[in-house]
């Protein structure tokens, strides 16, 4: 790391609330395998857990980023082998400037809008929306998701072993405004995403539940 980069990192560490997971020894990210599945021979010696979060952005709070390995129960592991997420892990976290909604790219959301209006039309109707509002609902989910993610208003939804191959999941809380006769109401809902590298979010379910 150059002196300039070190200085930048130091300044960011004072003001930034966001981190990027960075494994400089690992060329792979979730993007390389997202739709084809992981090739275990190809990714060796790197592990799936680290590949799915490599170059991804998280708010630097316990419940909003991948859980670090707890060495309290493994005192026998030497200090120089203690990586961030597992022994011998190469991942580091680096501070990044707090992201703004304009930096976030959401994909696969628009393709799921037909499904949303097909399956949950009645529920959307209870919030004052109908099929003519599909584009509006799409833009609302998109813009509110970007805003909430940047505000750190999401929960880490750790994948079970079998789901790791799909990536690191989060649930973003949205304060969804009602429309027509429900225009005076705000509905707390969640939208589910997989975190992709460099500020990208892949939509999993446009409206996946209520916000708790």
């Amino acid at each position, binding site marked *: 790391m150059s002196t300039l980069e070190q200085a930048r990192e130091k300044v960011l560490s004072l003001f930034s609330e966001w981190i990027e997971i960075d494994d400089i020894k690992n060329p792979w990210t979730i993007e390389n395998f997202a*739709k084809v*599945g992981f090739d275990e021979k190809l990714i060796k010696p790197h592990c799936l857990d680290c590949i799915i979060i490599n170059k991804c952005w998280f708010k630097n709070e316990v419940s909003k980023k991948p859980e670090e390995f707890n060495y309290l129960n493994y005192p026998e592991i030497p200090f120089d082998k203690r990586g961030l997420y597992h022994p011998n892990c190469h991942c580091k976290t680096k501070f990044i400037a707090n992201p703004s909604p304009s930096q976030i790219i959401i994909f696969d959301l628009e393709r799921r809008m037909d499904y949303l209006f097909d*399956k949950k039309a009645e*529920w959307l109707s*209870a919030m004052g929306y109908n099929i003519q509002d599909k584009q509006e609902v799409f833009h609302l989910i998109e813009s509110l998701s970007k805003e909430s993610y940047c505000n750190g208003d999401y929960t880490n939804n750790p994948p079970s072993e079998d*789901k790791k191959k*799909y990536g690191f999941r989060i649930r973003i809380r949205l304060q969804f405004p009602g429309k027509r006769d429900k225009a005076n109401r705000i*509905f707390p809902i969640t939208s589910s995403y997989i975190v992709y590298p460099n500020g990208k979010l892949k939509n999993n*379910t446009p409206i996946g539940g*209520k916000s708790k």
Partner: protein
Amino acid sequence: MKLFDDIKIINENKYYTENGIFKGRIGTINSPEIRDNCFEVVFIDERFFNKNFQWTEENIETMKDDILIDVKIEDMEVIKESNATDDDIYEMLPGKTNWCKVENGYIINLVGEKKNKIPYNYNS
């Protein structure tokens, strides 16, 4: 069997039931690709399939969270086909050779290649 088709669970196992999914539950295929002979399936609140249930402003916040799990092809059957075209599926896949549909007992890709040799035996 393909993206956005509605399916019904016909065989249950421990993994499904631990996730709250039992035989007879209806879901929708959520992933374009087939991995390890599975589609990812989303199961929404069962009340969406109850014709007698009405969502209102009062009960809207009782909607249960979606459940997303991998379901083996042999453990489900299609109950309603989606109108997703090959082009729609291709848009969400990296290539036409990724396994993405099941037809007549064969896992196939968009160029018509078959993954399994014996129909309905997806490991063959």
